[in-house]
């Protein structure tokens, strides 16, 4: 699949995954891959800068699990601001996707 199709929606997908519960980076990549039948294959090198950027914007927070100090996992948690952002982006995306589908399927035309 063309990667550019995914690039604009990565933040939305990440926020959506975190809506269901706190997750760490590796878990998110695997979950995304599994739920999209390997369609969305996110590079870790893309995910972490995005996570840190969302954290700076206050949409997510992070906490570290130190049960195995040699391999500390950093879990991400969706904040209230993140939930609001997710709702907004989800609405935007549904509107966009609906319109795209209608055009592709040759449906209603307002012109």
């Amino acid at each position: 699949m063309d990667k550019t199709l995914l690039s604009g929606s990565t933040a939305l997908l990440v926020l959506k995954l975190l809506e269901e519960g706190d997750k760490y980076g590796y878990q998110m990549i695997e979950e995304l891959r599994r739920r999209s039948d390997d369609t969305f294959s996110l590079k870790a090198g893309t995910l972490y800068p995005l996570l840190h950027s969302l954290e700076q914007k206050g949409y997510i927070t992070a906490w570290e699990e130190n049960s195995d100090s040699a391999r500390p996992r950093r879990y991400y948690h969706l904040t209230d601001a993140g939930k609001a952002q997710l709702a907004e982006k989800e609405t935007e995306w549904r509107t966009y996707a609906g319109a795209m589908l209608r055009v592709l399927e040759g449906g209603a035309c307002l012109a």
Partner: protein
Amino acid sequence: MPERFTVYLVEVGQAIRWRRARSFALRELRTHLIEQKECFQNEGMEEQAAEEAAIREMGEPEMVGKELDAVHRPREQWLWLGAAALLSCAAVFLRFYLTAGFAFESPQPGKVVTALLLGFTAMVGLYFLDYRILTRHTGKIYAAAVLLGLLTWEFGPHVNHAAWYTRQVVLLYPVVYAIWVNKFRGKGWQGFFLAVLGGFPLALIACMAPYMMGLFLLFGTGLVLLLLAAREDFFGIGRRQTALGAAGCALAVAAPAWYFGSNGWMLRHVSMLLHPEKDPLGYGYQAISVRNMLSGAVWQGAASVGPEYGEQTYEYIVPEWSGDFFLTTIACKLGWVFFILTALVLLLLFGWLLRRALGERNPFGRILAVGAVLPLLVETVGGIIQNLGYFVVSFPIPFFSGNLNMILTMALLGLLLSTMRQGDLPEEQEGAPRRRWRMVLTLVEE
């Protein structure tokens, strides 16, 4: 860690320009690489192939590093640093200008220049300090603060039965207490009570000084810090429980203090706030002299001295006119416009910085920043009120009340701005493999 991963992470690290962001960013990538490798091995790959595949999945190291670099940049606070520097210079200028001709009150140029230099050095040094390292030395910092208080009390000069240097040390106690409180994060009720108990030795030194204003600042800031801790369930005992515990402890401390204090010192001072005329030549003298002088102040220019003072001039009427009552001096020598302007600048500066401090994302950064700026704001508000003739205890005016006070103010601002500069960095985690990471970082440096 496999050599291949180290080399990869070193390449990523080289693209991240801010050193302090490296260790945290690389640690997360490292965990990811190890987990990814194990996953590939579970799927049947050989170790070497699994490592190579994990690296491939991560992406080009330079690109990954550049993306992380773009996210992690220090938030420089040049504007605030400049404002603090400018304000300290303006304060020094006013102190010279308004005390000219009064040799005993006028600051000594050599001492002022030294104080300015020390203040700048402290402010800039603390600004660039990685404030997060303070969490590693909590015990030492606390012990040093207590020891310094005791040493200055024992060996420092006592003026009017007060240990002068101890009073200055006490002004740093709110910040020391903030560092102390942070030590007990997530430690439950035991941690909460230890955090509260840590305030007592500091309060005791404030009482020994004696410095009621310092005690009040420590008590007030400590309570605010504990309530802030409650907001985010800092100790892990529940928000409401923390808030109730903090309020209960505050009441348990304040009630007996008020009861015993109300028999003498405190009652006299509070009654003087409302009716200084009851003791015009004793406790009420300062307030009355300030009010009388201000009654002759004009919008712009020097105040006229009332006939009741005969030939006396302002400088001989208002005690402490070149120190804690310098704002009154500004009003009486330059006019109300300059008084209002100075008060507004101080209020806006510390008010805005407190707002920023409360918005800090990093929990330690937040309580440290609040511990640094809240006392400065309270001093400013208290100072303005006392300089209007409503006097209970003497508040120093940040930047204006002497050389040492200026140094302390600038140092506290440096610490505060350091938390803002590094606001996007997470805290150092306990148990993080520092030594091994130093090794990787050393490779990055090379």
